[in-house]
């Protein structure tokens, strides 16, 4: 309790103001500490709540939620029931989530394929190529893009992106480049994997650009100059010295962005095509993600008198939660490691 005051010897502690007696540092540490504890607690409580709520579905579905691709809430008007593991569902009910897990992972992954190289390029250009006078403008655009609500991205997707893919890009690509993997077959309406991934990448980019830019700026000057002074070109300095020294930070930024893309709901819901029970064979066809299906299937799930459809959606939500939590924790650990190796 009084370790902060050790130097004071026998000084009359009672006369010091309260804050000083406890130690300002300690108060701050307590506040931050309790904030961290509370948010951790909230996360744990949410996990527990979701787990308890979804528990009947977990028992009923078993591994099927991950291995099966048919999502059918059963015959809501009949009177037949199926019972599995002691849990009752409507006749014909089958809750296979594979299509949604697949869609979630693939849309986010393809989005990262677009967004990571582009964000790297933009961030590097921002640090090295954009004239200082223009930098505030570009930075402002990046911040603005980050602040646009996802429903606006979705609307732009519906009005501009989907027609473009459905009427031009898709037909042309499947006809001329159809021999390549994931490009052949029917092009579809434009709603689907490509549209979802493009939106996701646009939404991920502002965060990634800003973070990668800051990570580079934190290291950049001394490393860049060190390399230049050895007779490197500026391209060599960036690629061989600066970038390798910021890979951890970049990797963490990508993971945080990935975590967000995995859980992004509204924009994807608007352009994904809402695939149920079918896998996309090429980048133009319909997909569905966990987040999108929870929203789109909720209404019909609520009509299930056994309640198992809702609980199965909750099970999907739990899975999404665990996946994004995992991705974020890995990102934190990497950043933490990067901080420590930078301390020297």
């Amino acid at each position, binding site marked *: 309790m009084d370790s902060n005051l050790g130097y004071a010897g026998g000084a009359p502690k009672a006369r010091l103001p309260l804050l000083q007696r406890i130690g300002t540092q300690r108060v701050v540490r307590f506040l931050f500490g309790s904030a961290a504890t509370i948010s951790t607690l909230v996360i744990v409580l949410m996990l527990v709540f979701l787990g308890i709520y979804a528990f009947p579905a977990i028992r009923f579905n078993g591994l099927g939620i991950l291995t099966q691709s048919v999502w059918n809430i059963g015959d809501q008007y009949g009177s037949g029931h199926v019972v599995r593991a002691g849990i009752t569902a409507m006749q014909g009910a089958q809750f296979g989530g594979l299509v949604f897990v697949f869609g979630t992972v693939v849309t986010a992954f393809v989005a990262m394929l677009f967004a990571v190289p582009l964000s790297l390029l933009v961030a590097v250009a921002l640090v090295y190529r954009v*004239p*200082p006078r223009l930098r505030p403008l570009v930075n402002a655009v990046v911040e603005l893009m980050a602040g646009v609500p996802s429903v606006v991205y979705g609307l732009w997707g519906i009005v501009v992106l989907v027609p473009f893919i459905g009427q031009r890009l898709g037909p042309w690509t499947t006809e001329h480049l159809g021999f390549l993997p994931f490009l052949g077959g029917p092009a579809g309406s434009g709603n689907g994997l490509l549209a979802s991934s493009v939106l996701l990448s646009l939404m991920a980019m502002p965060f990634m650009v800003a973070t990668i830019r800051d990570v580079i700026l934190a290291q950049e000057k*001394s*490393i*860049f*100059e*060190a*390399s*230049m*002074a*050895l*007779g*490197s*070109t*500026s391209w*060599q300095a960036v690629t*061989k*010295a600066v970038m*390798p*020294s910021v890979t951890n930070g970049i990797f963490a930024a990508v993971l945080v962005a990935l975590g967000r893309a995995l859980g992004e709901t509204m924009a994807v819901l608007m352009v994904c095509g809402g695939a149920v029970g079918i896998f996309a064979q090429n980048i133009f066809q319909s997909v569905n993600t966990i987040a999108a299906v929870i929203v789109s299937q909720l209404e019909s799930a609520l009509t299930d008198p056994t309640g198992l459809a809702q609980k199965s959606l909750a099970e999907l939500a739990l899975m999404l939660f665990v996946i994004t939590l995992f991705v974020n924790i890995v990102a934190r650990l990497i950043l933490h490691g990067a901080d420590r*190796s*930078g*301390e*020297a």
Partner: protein
Amino acid sequence: MTTSIAPSATHTKLDIRALNVYYGAFQAIQNASLAVPDHCVMALIGPSGCGKSTFLRALNRMHDLQPGTRVEGKVLLDGSDIYAPGIDAVAIRHRIGMVFQRPNPFPKSIFDNVAYGPRLHGTQDKKTLMEIAERSLRSAALWDEVKDRMDKSALTLSGGQQQRLCIARCLAVDPEVVLMDEPASALDPIATSKIEDLIDGLKDKYTVVIVTHSMQQAARISDFTAFFLMGELVELSTTSEIFTKPKDKRTEDYITGRYG
């Protein structure tokens, strides 16, 4: 350690003529001319902010990297102007190396730090790189301390070791001139004296221009000393002369401690 050779008496390695450096509209160096003889140590001294770093960075075209900075005048390396049209700044920096005020090793292994430059310039053979690394680390008086942990991160070294690593990294590309900007200012006295000792050994192979804000250091390690004040080169002399019988009143004031 100081000699009595006048700057003109031997081969001139660097000949700086009427150098002006501007940061935007602000002129940081005013019409400075100065010759650095081959195989000697030239110290640049002067109060903080007088333009020592600015002058030094003009000698290997580091100012090119910062938009808005402008250099006028000539810097002749072995008689040819490094600012002449068509001259590649990258090639110049290969010949004129630089050690910075704060140790700035790459977050790579000790070996990869020293091998970085040679690799850039085309040496890939591991054995050759190892020989270069050993030779450079020996010149930087660091070999004995790191020879058993060449693949450990450079960031595990102490500040003084990191700075010697940066010196080794610079020597590994075999420069002709080594520029040092207060290389010991962030270090403790023991690390500082190690650096001072090794600088003396560099003269055989290299020409050294070193910025220092410590007059004692300049006196200990340099053959010639140039005194700068507010962007102006006030006086250039052999080190012994400048500290015993300065010609300019301002130099005298400075070395007797009348400026900060």
